[in-house]
């Protein structure tokens, strides 16, 4: 099925509060639970996504965490997945990788910041 299913979790780590919502661009929603969290971490630091390119398997989670004192976002260039809200310091954003392919994304606040997700079968 040619849909990208994403799940978003914003955690206010410092406050110990966690909000939770499920979003999908197209097709059905899928909640995969929290298994495997932390496998694919992308750190946002010094106005850069690190690693800039990440390769994951379909169904795996990808989590960004903002380590800057500046808010950042994660936005799909081709609008293939729902954009993150503005992530403040230490906030996280998680999506679940959908169909195999290459997904480009950027920070809509600082568009010089770009990254790539490669999803394998």
């Amino acid at each position, binding site marked *: 099925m040619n849909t990208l299913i994403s799940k978003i979790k914003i955690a206010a780590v410092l406050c110990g509060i966690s909000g939770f919502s499920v979003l999908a661009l197209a097709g059905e929603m899928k909640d995969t639970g929290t298994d495997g969290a932390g496998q694919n971490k992308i750190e946002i630091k*010094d*106005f850069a996504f690190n690693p800039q390119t990440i390769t994951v398997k379909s169904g795996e989670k990808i989590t960004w965490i903002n380590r*800057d004192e*500046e*808010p950042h976002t994660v936005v799909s260039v081709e609008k293939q997945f729902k954009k993150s*809200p*503005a992530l403040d310091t230490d906030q996280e954003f998680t999506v679940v990788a959908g169909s195999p392919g290459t997904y480009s994304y950027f920070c809509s606040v600082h568009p010089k910041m*770009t990254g790539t997700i490669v999803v394998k079968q």
Partner: protein
Amino acid sequence: MSNYISHDHEHDGIDRRGFLKCMAWAGTGVLWTISGGVLVSKTLAEVAKTGSSLPTATDLSFLQISDSHIGFNKAANKDVTETFKIALDRINAMPTPPSFLIHTGDITQLSKPEEFDTFDQILKSCRTKDVFYVPGEHDVLNDGGKMYRERYLKNVQGKGSGWYSFNKNGVHFIGLVNVLDLQAGGLGQLGDEQLEWLENDVKGLGGDTPIVVFAHIPLWTVYPQWGWGTSDSERALGYLKRFGSVTVLNGHIHQVLQKVEGNVTFHTAMSTAFPQPAPGTAPSPGPLTVPAEKLRSMLGLTSVQYKQGTTALAVVDTTLS
């Protein structure tokens, strides 16, 4: 270097040599001022002491404040509301109040309603009530600028995502939006719709009309590696080429930088919240933490004076220290 004035074309007590001396001050971050030959250099503190207004004869004076980042609470400045208040105190202490204020964006840190509320509340203490805004990227984070426009465009005829123009004392002011619909890998952006509006907006104006353009992200390429520029600003400036005096006021980079190109003076203002590093001097443009006693010397506001018949506007930066 002697202090006599050899060339005083504008009869304002400043010549090229005096100007260059002020340029030298720029390196210290204390105070500097410039504008195509017209130059005024007094701190607001000096003005308060002597009781004289900044220029001796001025038709219009206004103040630029920028990057107040209400809601920011990290090491670079734990109390941005306090430094914003100090900036307003400085304005209130001016013997001749400015006609109006311009805020060049990043009112808030995270576009939160309570941050906007705090800003509005503090601003009430300002004697000068007329304020014109343009948004920074921090003001439009989650809703494309809807909340910003509802709050800050009440007194102007905002077009599109919030750009507008108005006239004061024969000067044509243009507020532009270059923080929305940004493209991956790119810089600030104005977009076709806004550029077409700009072309029409200035069409009927005589070339001798002084123009002031204000927008958040610099409309000149300061440092593209950090996104400090606007991808389609050249087209905007093309529409303004025929004007004898164009002053471009920006924020975003939290430091004073200035460039003169033909009839166009580009100028960026200090923040009232925290400084940012000089281009390329840090791993990223993130907030710069300086020793507490130094902070206020790196925050400030900008005063702009226009005297009819002169060739350019005088732009004066003052720190909060």
